[in-house]
């Protein structure tokens, strides 16, 4: 049953690939004109059209695109003159590192804070945290990034201003370069997750089993951590997992602040350079990745709560 559920990701992933195809091939606007400009000689245009396979019927292009994607053949970048797969293999680890570090930071901050504020609901601490999270939801991640950069790199000089260090150069350098970007990316997500955990724990604390636990004389600490939190964790895992997709999206923008050579910069540079095969493949890879993560979250949710499979 679970396997069947996980297989549900396949049509969604095809959908993602289709989306990348439709957006860039079917929407008005001729990619060749985009690439060469309006005044390009017709001969040159037709050569490029042929080499990109754009002179074939649309459905043929679509099938070829799906099959190539399945075999990991992502085409050749028009601006870098190397296979897109090579570029993606270089850039994807950066973006995934950033998103994973942000997710870890989000959970590490939001979980204790959410439980604390739920336990002390409407105390000054709780109201203060809620106000801060409300503000956190209102500011864009790249602005948080700029402010962090200003404080820790420009004023204090504690952390590097720009760039990325692969894990191969040692975990310390890697972490130093990722700390500020992941902090910027995590801020809004942590604000959102804190509010969610708080609401989920508060809801559990109002249930009958909590009253029963109190009735049999269980300590508040035990009720909170061993009973209410455990039940509140089930929806929390889903929400946290689904944030990963948004973190990948947010990473595109935050990479630009910190000069991280990730997928976001690849896509943005591809758009500037009108590099159609690059943008198309990079968008498809990111979209399929989001699908895969969502399916994984769904699986975790089902393992944690077997009632859903019944």
């Amino acid at each position, binding site marked *: 049953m679970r396997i069947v559920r996980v297989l549900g990701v396949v049509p969604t992933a095809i959908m993602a690939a289709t989306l990348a195809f439709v*957006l860039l091939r079917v929407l008005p*606007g001729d990619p060749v004109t985009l690439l060469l400009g309006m005044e390009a000689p017709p001969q040159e245009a037709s050569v490029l059209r042929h080499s990109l396979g754009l002179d074939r019927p649309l459905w043929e292009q679509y099938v070829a695109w799906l099959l190539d994607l399945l075999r990991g053949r992502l085409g050749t970048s028009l601006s870098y003159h190397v296979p897109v797969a090579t570029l993606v293999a270089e850039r994807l680890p950066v973006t995934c590192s950033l998103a994973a570090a942000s997710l870890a930071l989000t959970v590490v901050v939001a979980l204790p804070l959410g439980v604390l504020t739920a336990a002390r609901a409407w105390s000054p601490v709780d109201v203060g945290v809620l106000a801060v999270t409300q503000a956190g939801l209102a500011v864009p991640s790249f602005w948080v990034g700029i402010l962090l950069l200003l404080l820790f790199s420009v004023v204090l000089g504690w952390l590097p201003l720009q760039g990325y260090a692969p894990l191969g150069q040692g975990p310390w350098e890697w972490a130093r370069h990722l700390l500020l970007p992941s902090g910027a990316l995590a801020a809004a997500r942590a604000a959102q997750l804190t509010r969610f955990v708080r609401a989920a724990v508060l809801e559990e604390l109002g249930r009958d089993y909590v009253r029963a636990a109190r009735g049999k004389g269980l300590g508040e600490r035990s009720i909170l951590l061993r009973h209410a939190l455990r039940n509140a964790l089930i929806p929390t895992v889903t929400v946290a997992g689904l944030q990963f997709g948004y973190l990948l999206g947010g990473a595109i923008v935050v990479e630009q602040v910190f000069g991280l050579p990730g997928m976001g910069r690849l896509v943005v540079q*591809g758009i500037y350079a009108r590099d159609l095969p690059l943008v198309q493949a990079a968008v498809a890879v990111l979209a399929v990745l989001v699908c895969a993560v969502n399916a994984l979250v769904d699986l975790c949710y089902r393992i944690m709560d077997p009632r859903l499979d019944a």
Partner: protein
Amino acid sequence: MRSRNLPLVVGALLLVAVAGATLVETVSERDAETRVDVAQRLQPPSRAHPWGTDDLGRDVLVRVLAGGRIALEVGTVAVGLGATAGVPLGLVAARIRGWPSGVLAYTMDALMAFPAILLALAMIAALGPGHVQAMVAIGLVLVPAFWRLARAQALVVWNREFVEAARALGAAEGRLLVRHVLPHVIPVLLVQATTAFSGAILSEASLSFLGLGSQPPTPSWGRMLQEATAALGVAPWMALFPGLALGVTVLGVNLLGDGVRDALDPQMRRVLPPGSIV
């Protein structure tokens, strides 16, 4: 309506302040936001330039206020586009059966699974960078959310007894939809519209920050922040004030949305006492 709905009041006040300040700037001096004065470049905040000047000597305060116009325009156009396309589609989808409805539902759900910025980027790649393109891309990204909510709400309302009663009295489908179903869908959509509005402003800022939204010299807040990153060490005020304005505006819209939700459905927020500012 609740007598003391603090988020509604504070959110509305913030928005009125932003819109008012923008309006004052619009009517006061023509094209002041793009006036270059190289002699005055990168000046720190002073009496003449309360929020300092940027790398071309333009007044940051004037540009931030002009940026408010862009932000409110983007929010209005994108939400308008998303709602006018998504809501009718959703209402119709609630009435159709069989595989077309299934395919539509699957497509919309799949679209909603992707991060908005990724969809908007893909659309910008197809349409080309620009202010109008960004608004259109953001508006189209909002369609599935409006569609889903309108459909879900309409599905419930279509089966209510008062709709049955009106039908029994001989009301045509179109009249049922407009006079009986739609009024019950609109309140929920209002809350959705505020969420979409703040999301649209943030998305536009992101796109402009990437250089794919409004182009120079248009003073979009995202664009201003991008220009600020180049002069971060020498002119931090260039980074501070556009972001602050963006945050205050989004906060205002978010609070307004919370307030509208509290006012319309007090039961929706049992966990948080209604009318609370946080």
